[in-house]
């Protein structure tokens, strides 16, 4: 198990290295005249040259990448072009909002999706059909449309919940809850739909396995068979789907944060990218891919824990 | 004995998986003459299927040589293999997966013919002949494999193998997925075809009784090595090798009295070998 963890961690690290290198080179190669953009049209050639030198843009790209990478390992993501702020400060201060949104969504969605998927697979009949229809609907309609619908109905028409704004979890838990209910609901629907569908399929599949019949022939209770044996064998699929959904969720969070005006990574992302602030964009890329890498690692470990055969691979 | 059709000389096959090498076959030497059936018998993991697959070019040999009609085919190119397909064919074990479910019987049977450049009309005529040969109705041509039972599908697979009038057919457990009554009928069809066309069979099976029914000579495999070979009467009724003896004694006889005796003999064999060990 330990070598399995080590192998997966190394794989994740190598992937991040490649992503960062490719992103770094592509971004800097395809952007020209950064200093000119920052200084504006009126700046003289000398001013532009001075700015280029100040930003270190006149030095070879590989050198700059290595320097940047070394900085990353020390938690330094460089400085924004347009504001006198450290990229890491700008991003890390926003991280808790986004992360709390993502984690809460994942947990809630996972619980609901597993419950629905198992119930649909075990009871079949009308419940199954209902879950299927909800799944198609939830999967088919883009999450931000749900978010808009929720804003219009619950915030604007009914006025039950605030449409925008954010309260820190640590300062006012109830207030926090009020501000995140709608965003979490909007984000979860798609995840629930996709995951419930896969869990349902996996549970039906496991229920058809020979060993389930054999377990029944031993006189074990149906509850023990479903919640111990079937659930464990079906969870791998559910977990893998959740992992894939999480990547989409990151993108979804950016949009949803914008709709509900939550001060998370998404708002930073949009602000800085429209201005072409490459250091911030690089920081954003590295942080999001780190989050994804950690989630993938957790999923791999989870699947490895559930399925002894996967540990060998 | 007539001229040797296929000679296998010191064939060895290794498989590499996850950086560990596993030897599936070692020092396999035998030959098949025109028109005869050589039976290959062994249990799972004995490498019997691998022998057939490496002769067909589906598994590359690691060591040794394969000679077919005097020509070295050990490392035959894809083009050479396509040429060889006229002389060498196959019938697989599973009649459910060896036929493409979305092609009609005619499409399946015409495939080898068309690959050899035979035109559509001639191919159609030959398909009718083939169906007749394996005793399937000629209107089976337009149907899909799923409309047929296991035994009938295996007849289709035999017809496909016969399409190019090969000299050698590798039969990989061709009756082990079939019911008892069907099994015997398909075996008899194999024998009848051999008498009519003079083709040779390499007949692979785990079942000594099946091997006894169709083979002239028998090779017994255990863990990738030949443990015994010889004429069918000798190997299947009075084997010399202890493993072959155990294989023979382990198969229960459909006669309670005879089986009781066989069981006692097997028990003696077991006690002897335990004492030896």
């Amino acid at each position, binding site marked *: 198990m330990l070598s399995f963890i080590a192998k997966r961690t190394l794989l994740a690290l190598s992937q991040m290295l490649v992503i960062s290198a490719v992103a770094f080179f592509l*971004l800097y190669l395809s*952007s020209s005249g950064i200093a000119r953009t920052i200084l504006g049209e009126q700046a003289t050639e000398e001013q532009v040259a001075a700015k280029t030198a100040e930003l270190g843009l006149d030095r070879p790209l590989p050198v700059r990448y290595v320097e940047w990478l070394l900085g990353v390992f020390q938690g330094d993501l460089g400085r924004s072009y347009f504001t006198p702020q450290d990229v890491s400060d700008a991003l890390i201060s926003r991280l808790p909002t986004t992360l709390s949104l993502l984690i809460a969504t994942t947990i809630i969605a996972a619980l609901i999706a597993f419950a629905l998927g198992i119930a649909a697979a075990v009871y079949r009949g009308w419940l199954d059909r209902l879950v299927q229809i909800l799944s198609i*609907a939830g999967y*088919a309609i*883009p999450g931000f449309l749900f978010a808009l*619908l929720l804003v*219009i109905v619950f915030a604007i028409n009914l006025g039950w919940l605030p449409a925008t704004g954010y309260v820190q979890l640590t300062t006012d838990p109830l207030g926090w809850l009020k501000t995140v209910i709608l965003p979490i609901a909007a984000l979860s629907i798609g995840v629930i739909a996709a995951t419930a569908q896969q869990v349902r399929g996996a549970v039906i599949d496991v229920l058809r396995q*020979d060993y389930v019949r*054999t377990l*029944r*022939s*031993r*006189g074990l*209770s*149906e509850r*023990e068979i479903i919640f111990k*044996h079937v659930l464990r*064998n079906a969870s791998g699929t559910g977990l893998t789907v959740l992992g*894939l959904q999480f*990547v989409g969720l990151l*993108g979804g969070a950016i949009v949803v944060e914008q709709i509900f005006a939550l001060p998370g990574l998404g708002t930073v992302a949009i602000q800085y990218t*429209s201005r*072409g602030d490459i250091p911030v964009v690089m920081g954003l*890329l590295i942080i*999001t891919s780190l989050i994804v890498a950690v989630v993938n690692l957790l999923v791999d470990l989870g699947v490895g824990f559930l399925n*002894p*055969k996967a540990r060998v691979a | 004995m007539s001229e040797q059709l296929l000679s296998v000389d010191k064939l060895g096959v290794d498989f590499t998986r996850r950086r560990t090498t596993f030897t599936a076959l070692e020092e396999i030497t035998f030959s098949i003459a025109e028109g005869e059936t050589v039976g290959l018998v062994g*249990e799972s993991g004995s490498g019997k299927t691998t022998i057939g697959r490496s002769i067909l070019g589906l598994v590359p040999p690691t060591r040794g040589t394969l000679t077919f009609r005097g020509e070295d085919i050990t490392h035959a190119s894809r083009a050479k293999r*396509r040429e060889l397909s006229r002389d060498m*064919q196959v019938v697989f074990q*599973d009649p459910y997966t060896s036929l493409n479910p*979305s092609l009609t019987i005619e499409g399946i049977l015409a*495939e080898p013919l068309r*690959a050899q450049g035979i035109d559509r009309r001639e191919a159609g005529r030959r398909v009718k002949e083939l169906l007749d040969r394996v*005793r399937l109705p000629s*209107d089976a041509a337009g*149907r899909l494999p*799923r*409309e047929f*039972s296991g*035994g009938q599908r295996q007849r289709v697979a035999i017809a496909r193998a016969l399409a*190019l009038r090969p000299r050698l057919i590798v039969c990989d457990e061709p009756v082990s997925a079939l019911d008892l*009554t069907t*099994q*015997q*009928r398909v075996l008899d069809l194999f*024998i009848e075809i051999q*008498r009519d066309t003079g083709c040779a069979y390499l007949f692979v099976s785990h079942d000594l*009784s*099946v091997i*006894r*029914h169709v083979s*002239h000579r028998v090779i017994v495999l255990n863990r990738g090595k030949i443990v015994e070979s010889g004429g*069918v009467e000798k190997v*299947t*009724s009075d084997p010399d090798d202890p493993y072959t003896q*155990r294989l023979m004694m382990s198969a*229960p006889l*459909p*006669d309670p009295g005879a089986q009781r005796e066989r069981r006692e003999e097997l028990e003696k064999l077991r006690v002897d070998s335990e004492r030896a060990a």
Partner: protein
Amino acid sequence: MSTSDKPETTLHRFLANPLALGAAIVLLVIVLCSALAPVLAGADPAFSAIRDAFLAPFSAGHPLGTDSAGRDIWARLLYGGQISLLGALLALVVAALIGIPAGLLAGYYGRWFDSVSVWMANLVQSMPGIVVLLAARAVLGPSIWISMLIFGVILSPGFYRVVRTAVINVRGELYVDAAKVSGLRDSAIIGRHILTVVRGPIIIQASLLLGIALAIQSGLEFLGVGDNSVPSWGNMLNEGFRSIYRAPITLLWPSLAIGLTCAALVIIGNGLRDALEERGLSSARRDRRKNVGTATAAMAALPAVDEAALDEAAPLTRPGVNTADESETIVTAPLADLEFVPEPVWSDSTPLETPEPDPSAVLSVRRLRVGYGSGPHDKTVVHNVSLDVHAGEVLGLVGESGSGKTQTAFAVLGLLPTGGRVTNGSVLFDGEELTTRSRASMRELRGTGIAYIPQEPMSNLDPSFKVGSQLSTPMMRRLGLDKRAARTRALELLDRVGIREPERTYDSYPHEISGGMAQRVLIAGAVSCRPRLLIADEPTTALDVTVQAEVLRLLRELQSEQEMAVILVTHNFGVVADICDRVAVMNKGTIVEQNDVESLFARPRHPYTQTLLGSTLEGGPSRIDLDRAEAEGAHR
């Protein structure tokens, strides 16, 4: 039966699904409207008149009203459709151009290209799409075409994975090997055998990916980072959102357009999948021998063409094909074969002529009937089966596939597959009726009263739990042993069934032990709670002969030690001769003959039994004998 010669195509099944058909029509209408925008719009989508801002729907000249800049919403919706759909299409085409060839190559040839491409697909899929698109936007500026081009690359693993998996599955099929041996070129194999299988999944995936591309594209534009100089659905959303308090209705139209399109695409994808799966259901029968569920399904679907009938008649038109005809209307046509119930032959020594249950037997079955489905589709797979098993006796239940022997066994266990039920007759166990028992009370009986040994050793152990826990848990639950006692007893059992290192096997996962060992573990599990009746369903069929002999020896010993009654389901007369005291021969759901083992082999009475025994090769003539007989026949 008036069935067409051509089998029903996937397209037919797709169009027969009302939901999918509706979605296809909706999509078609949306596409047509967008394509015909210049004809249908009636206004310039970019023409802005501030005094006309926020006109309500159905205003003069503006069927859907106007937006914040006074532009006609209907016109913008139609022209926006062009841009949005073409953008999504661009992403799809790029994804297909990269993903499909890569998947084909990786799947068919494997090796280094496979490992490299899998690694790259993983890499691309671990990047959140929107973040990458935002980064691209930062350096390349806003352009729907550039971002959709990049998104196409991000989507390409979607195609790649589907194609690769499908190709790997097909590549392993025997018919591809057969095509190679038939002398087909790789290009012909890919064209004939591989593309046909991959086609369906590609189309399904395309509809899903198109929806995703559209959603991402509108999401991006909605964020306001897109190119807002062109009318597109996403840009319309963005504008609507800015005036969400003033005129929420302006949000409705683009939302509706995006939502409907995405939903239609997903429903079409699902419909296609269902249509393809139905085809798969009626064709794949590969593991019919392994799984009873499928065996019964196979009976329902397969024509069960009579092999005997084939060989009897030499002429070319014959009953075999008539039955094949019926296979196309499997659901409506009940198996003609099953309507014919063979006449049973009772031997003199069989006490079964008494219609009353035998009180001295552990198990006494009378007139058992097992059926599947209900109404016009029902099918009876076991007819009128009666049998008795006494303590210490082994009854062999023999027959070919589809004879109903396994169904009879499952009916006794109360573990018939979904859809199956006992429709008539009685099953008495220790004098107690089982057919009327509740599910819960049947459970009380299993393990301790009636136990079961399956056919396939590997698939009958839960792969996620150690062998030990699978053995000890039932003893804890059913015998009330504590954990330590259960472990001790499990180790004793493992030792008893001949496993050399019980402790090691106890701590192993099923995939770490061999098939023969797994079967011993399953036998240990079956006898662990000291059942009165053991039902063994082809317990040695999946094993090598040498292992079979050992397992039979073990079963015989355990059976006499524990004085169990045993029902042994098998197709092998050698196994019957070896271990059974009495035999019941089944054919087409009925017991045709029942007798003690010596008499049955010495004097088979029913013609079917005679045919079966005549087909056994064991102890029969060798090829040399056959050739000699043939030569003599030719001389005469």
